């Protein structure tokens, strides 16, 4: 089975969130399946738009203090009906970021990971050599 790879590096700044999520949803639209309904195809693309928007925001917002913004690298792996995105940033480790909020109180922050986990099939968070990697995938 052939798989294709696309790698993009963006500056770790808020103003590039939209660009990152649009690249993700456009890449996901390459997967339109004629056997699926228009709604299902659109859902697939929107899931990536949302997940990448959340993940990129997370990567940018948790920048190390008093450091210049670090670049964020996004790798897309396109298999036959599955898209996997891996996002790498060199900011503070995942484990030191705010934990999941108490949903009963409807807080302002912290829904990001919940949203990613709900719309994606698999999500993994790892840290390698000072780099945080979030990997998410979804199959159409």
């Amino acid at each position, binding site marked *: 089975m052939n798989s294709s790879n696309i790698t993009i590096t963006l500056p770790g700044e808020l103003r590039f969130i939209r660009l990152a999520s649009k690249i993700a949803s456009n890449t996901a639209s390459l997967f339109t399946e004629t056997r699926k309904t228009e*709604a299902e195809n659109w859902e697939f693309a929107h899931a990536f738009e949302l997940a990448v928007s959340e993940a990129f925001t997370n990567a940018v917002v948790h920048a190390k203090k008093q450091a210049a913004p670090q670049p964020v690298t996004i790798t897309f792996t396109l298999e036959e009906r599955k898209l996997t995105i891996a996002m790498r940033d060199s900011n503070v480790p995942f484990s030191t970021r705010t934990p999941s909020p108490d949903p009963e109180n409807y807080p302002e922050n912290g829904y990001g990971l919940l949203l990613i986990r709900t719309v994606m099939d698999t999500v993994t968070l790892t840290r390698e050599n000072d780099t945080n990697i979030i990997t998410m995938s979804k199959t159409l």
Partner: protein
Amino acid sequence: MPQPPLRHPGNHNNAMKTLIAIKEQHQSWVRDAFPNMHPLLLPLCNKPFIEYLIDFAILAGSREIRLLSDGSLMEIEEICQTGSRWGVELTYANIRPEDGERELLHKNRKFCNGSRTMILNGYTFIDYDKRLDYRVLANHSATGPIASCSTGSIAFAGPPEPAADDNPLPALRITPLDSLRSCYHIAMQILETGAERYVLPGYGSEPGCAIGRNVAIAKTAEIRKPVSIGNNVQLLPGTIIGPMAVIGSNVIIDKGSSISGSIIFDNTYIGEQLEIEGRIASGNTLIDPESGASVAMEDPHLLTGIHSATNSATLLRKTIHALAAAILILLQAIPVIILYPLLRLQGKWKNGPITQQAGLAETLAARLSLDRFPLLPKVLLGQLAIIGSAPRSNSPGCRPAVFSYAEAEDWPVTGSDAAIVERYHAVHSTPFNDIGMTIKALINRPHKRNAGAAA
């Protein structure tokens, strides 16, 4: 750039619209009883609850239906989608728990579009009849609730459709769907009288007998109507289904069992030689709809294999039971020596209910379960177990014993339930667990007898 698909605006011909508003608080009992079931899909006679509402809306001439919830709509939206399955246009919107009819109409004003609107509010069952014409509801000028009950109502808003008709409205009754008990009674009622009133799933050569797809019925299995059976069901030889039985989908009824006055929900296995009467069975739980009492079996099956029962006759179990019997003999010996002659003289050495005039001796004898004393030596000889099945028969799956598991369990002891509980424990109980159950039986027995006297 990908765009979300357009929701087609639908008919503009001002046909009546329907709002179905079901709040989480009314459905929460379903989540507690059946954790993996969405309340709107609760099957009543193998037809999901929401389909009854949709059928009624269609009978009333409504094709555009909006589902309103104060909780998450994602699950139900994924299952029901656009409603094309039923020939309606289904949309979804969020409301707040405290919203009343006024708020519902405000929040869905664009959907209602000035047309007559029917609001089905609450988790209730509508007693309608498909042979009647409910389109008069759309043509009528009455507004406000026309039927209500403790947990919901049917109300109307908006002007009547053209050709206003003030003929009397058909009588409509709604029943609250607020507990397993009401769910059970409604399902039984549908089974008994509903074949004509509702569109029910299944194929049947005669009314009162609806059977789904891929149902394997053994030659010696018997079906006594009225009965409703789902899809992918196996009825093994010697089973008797009905009267008044609802069997869900993906169910196996093993050899020789009988089901009557009961509902077996999806994905349930009923073991051999069981009598299920007046109960609800779901997965590994058996429920009495009237009292709400339930027994959960650890296995995903209601299990009673004959082969398993004989395996449990191990040396360890026999040794431990004998030890327990020996201890019990020692403990009871002195009270027996004192009380037995007294009670023999009084003619009260019988295992009857404790009356108000029970003397001290009799009460003491009952509390210590001294009536079982003569049987204890048999445990030492290996002829009986200390705890198992009673009556102490030798039928397959039974382990004859001094006390019975049913006496230990706080379970309404009718014959069939006792058999299930006893055989389950006979298979799954460890010898040490048995000791605990014996002590429980010793404690519970006097209570049972008291309850028997009081009843």
